[in-house]
């Protein structure tokens, strides 16, 4: 697909600004092209509500995870891949932010397939299909699957963190 870079940047950039508005209510974000030492690149800029523009490194662990997820989701909205496989990406998110992130995932789930690996209950509750992995005393893993009508209430096991 010989699409211009400017076109992709614009499409993903708009979605990024939109997703940042959902994950950081009252905050702002954009993706900006830059040229460093003759090399073309892009930088991500996010200012959470009630804060001032600062280097991304000064943001908290949870805030940086959310920025990275906003970028991933923006690409998923603008130029979707066949599926998105995310392994425990919510580890640094507090409960409020986790639910905001899952809210955006559910919105996109109509058009995009997600594979989320987790040990957290709120993520389990957004599943359309649930796979339980267990390991026996012989070091062999097994998988059990359930298709759900969006009601996996009964499935909380002791190793799943409820919220």
């Amino acid at each position: 697909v010989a699409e211009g870079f400017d076109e992709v940047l614009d499409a993903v950039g708009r979605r990024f600004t939109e997703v940042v508005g959902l994950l950081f209510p009252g905050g702002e974000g954009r993706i900006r092209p830059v040229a460093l030492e003759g090399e073309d690149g892009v930088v991500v800029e996010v200012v959470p509500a009630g804060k001032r523009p600062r280097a991304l490194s000064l943001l908290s662990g949870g805030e940086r995870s959310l920025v990275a997820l906003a970028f991933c989701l923006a690409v998923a909205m603008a130029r979707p891949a066949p599926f998105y496989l995310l392994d425990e990406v919510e580890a640094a998110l507090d409960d409020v932010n986790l639910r905001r992130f899952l809210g955006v995932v559910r919105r996109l789930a109509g058009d995009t397939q997600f594979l989320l690996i987790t040990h957290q209950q709120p993520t389990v509750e957004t599943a359309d299909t649930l796979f339980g992995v267990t390991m026996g005393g012989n070091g062999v893993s097994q998988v059990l699957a359930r298709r759900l009508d969006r009601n996996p209430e009964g499935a909380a096991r002791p190793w799943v963190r409820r919220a």
Partner: protein
Amino acid sequence: MLTRLSLRGFKSFAEPVELRFGPGVNVIVGPNGSGKSNVAEAILWALGEQRPARLRAPGMQDVLFSGGPGRQAVGVAEVTMGLAGPGGEGRPAELEVTRRLTRAGDAGYRLNGGRCRLLDVQDALATHGLGPRSLSVIRQGQVEAVCASHPAELRAVLDEAA
């Protein structure tokens, strides 16, 4: 979208196991050390990952089930991944990739059943929008890496997504 994943002999999955994925949100849950990330790595492996470090393995041989109490190591690891394309417009409607590795070191790939080279698998996957630099897989502990990337790397991710 990903329709199915079959594993046998891959890491902790000594026994053949099949996962049939649905549209929307698929969630894989389980205790620490049960094998969830091993499932993710089986997908990465089927997508053609060549670096053992990206599979937490010292060497590629380490992805073969190496035994447990009362359970012998296996001689071969094999993973099959089924992808359903949107179809139409010249895109393949269905793609099945199989990767295989024996303890002796014999490596093999199949595309829709027929033997092929790694390059053929990479080309086929590329037409489905699945490439090595894609953001479509975020490994455990790697989510913040997106933020820490160099401007040139981030640009490459966008180029690939196009």
